[in-house]
């Protein structure tokens, strides 16, 4: 199992203060419970470390596994979920099938009302692109154009933030 070998070393190296023990160098995964330090900075660093894990480790997590990853990131530093979304691959179905959206009502980019979104996209060709798709998911405090994959959200990221 080489997947987490080098990465676990890196994790231990820079998270040794914030996460103890994280992944021991002698074994890739420990049986003991992990503990995250109580400082906000440490939890934030740990959360973004997990985002980096998705970007840099040679893995293709299934939607259910993305859900677990999102759950951990949510506990460490909730705002980092927004960053996680930016790095989900549209072709892997990770956004729409993982259920992450169910817990994203608090995020700024997804709490914009329909009028706000239409204002933002006014005059852009994207507006007509979206209208090509028939499925639009509307939830309380959550306005999301469900085009079946996550590329739509990639638009939302930059256009709506912060």
């Amino acid at each position, binding site marked *: *199992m080489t*997947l*987490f070998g*080098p*990465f676990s070393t*890196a994790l231990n*190296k*820079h*998270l040794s203060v*914030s996460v103890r023990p994280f*992944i021991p160098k002698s074994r890739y*995964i420990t049986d003991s*419970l*992990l*503990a*995250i*330090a*109580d400082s906000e900075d440490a*939890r934030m*660093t740990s959360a*973004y*470390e*997990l985002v*980096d894990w998705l*970007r*840099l*480790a*040679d893995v*293709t*997590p*299934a939607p259910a*596994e993305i859900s*677990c*990853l999102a*759950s*951990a990131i949510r*506990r*460490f530093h909730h705002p980092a979920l927004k*960053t996680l979304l*930016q*790095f989900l*691959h*549209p*072709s892997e179905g990770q956004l729409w099938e993982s259920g992450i959206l169910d817990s994203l009502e608090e995020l700024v980019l997804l709490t914009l009302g329909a009028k706000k979104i239409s204002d933002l*996209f006014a*005059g*852009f*060709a*994207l507006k007509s*692109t979206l209208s090509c798709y028939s499925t639009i998911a509307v939830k309380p405090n959550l306005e999301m154009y469900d*085009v079946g*994959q996550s*590329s739509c959200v*990639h*638009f939302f*990221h*930059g*256009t709506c*933030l*912060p």
Partner: protein
Amino acid sequence: MEWEDWSVIPFHFILLAPMVSLFTASSSRTYFQVLVKTFCKTGVPALYITLRRLLRRVLTESVLFQEDPDEVDLWLASLPLGSVRRGSNTEAPDGASLTDEVDAVVTFLDDCTQRCLKTPYRYMEAMSELLQPNDNDEQFADAVPVDTQTEVFSSPLLMTVLEQLLAKANGRLMSPSEALSVFTFVRQLVVKLASKQVDMGYHALHAFVRKFEVPVESGGFFKDYPSISRAIRRELSITKACLGHLGVFPLRNIQQKNNDSVRTFLDRIEQALVR
């Protein structure tokens, strides 16, 4: 004048900004670089809004965005706004040092901005050549001709980014971490630029992305850092998937792998106690 105190200098500078050129250097950095960096990192809404207005005004009045001033918003939105916060001595699985993403992108963009301001017409010509590739260019043998009436990149700065990213990554003039940060920025930018294209085939953007394909897919960037090289390929893949999905191209299904290992890893992470 030193620019280390980010909490004080920007407010002070904003008052002076109309009187000086933002592209003038102070020490080793330009005022533009200082402001963009603060824009990316500030957590103060009032400062963010003020800087956004200032940057927007300065950029829209420059030759960079004279064709379409509204495009500035897409560029600013593509910046890593407080995105990834890394601890010190962070490393990728391949040992590459991971550094601050904002620093990497802002430094790169500042360099590109200055280059483009010096010779904007050179980059406008480069854009024309990109949109109308030579028939003998094998790389673009299957490319769909771009209708320049409906598809156009307004800012020549995009061509500067293309030129400089390829040059700096090829020449190892930027670190692996910096290159990944800039590729992430380019990915965000390209997908956002799709929102201003009238033709939903996004042929112009595909032509732009193809320029990166050969060196990236062949593993030409940072071969000795496989994690970074793979992450850059992933950025390109996401770019193409986004453009493909928004356009008419079918998505490919990616095979999942190593799921037992991933599952085990995530199980352990899930058990972590937050004190």
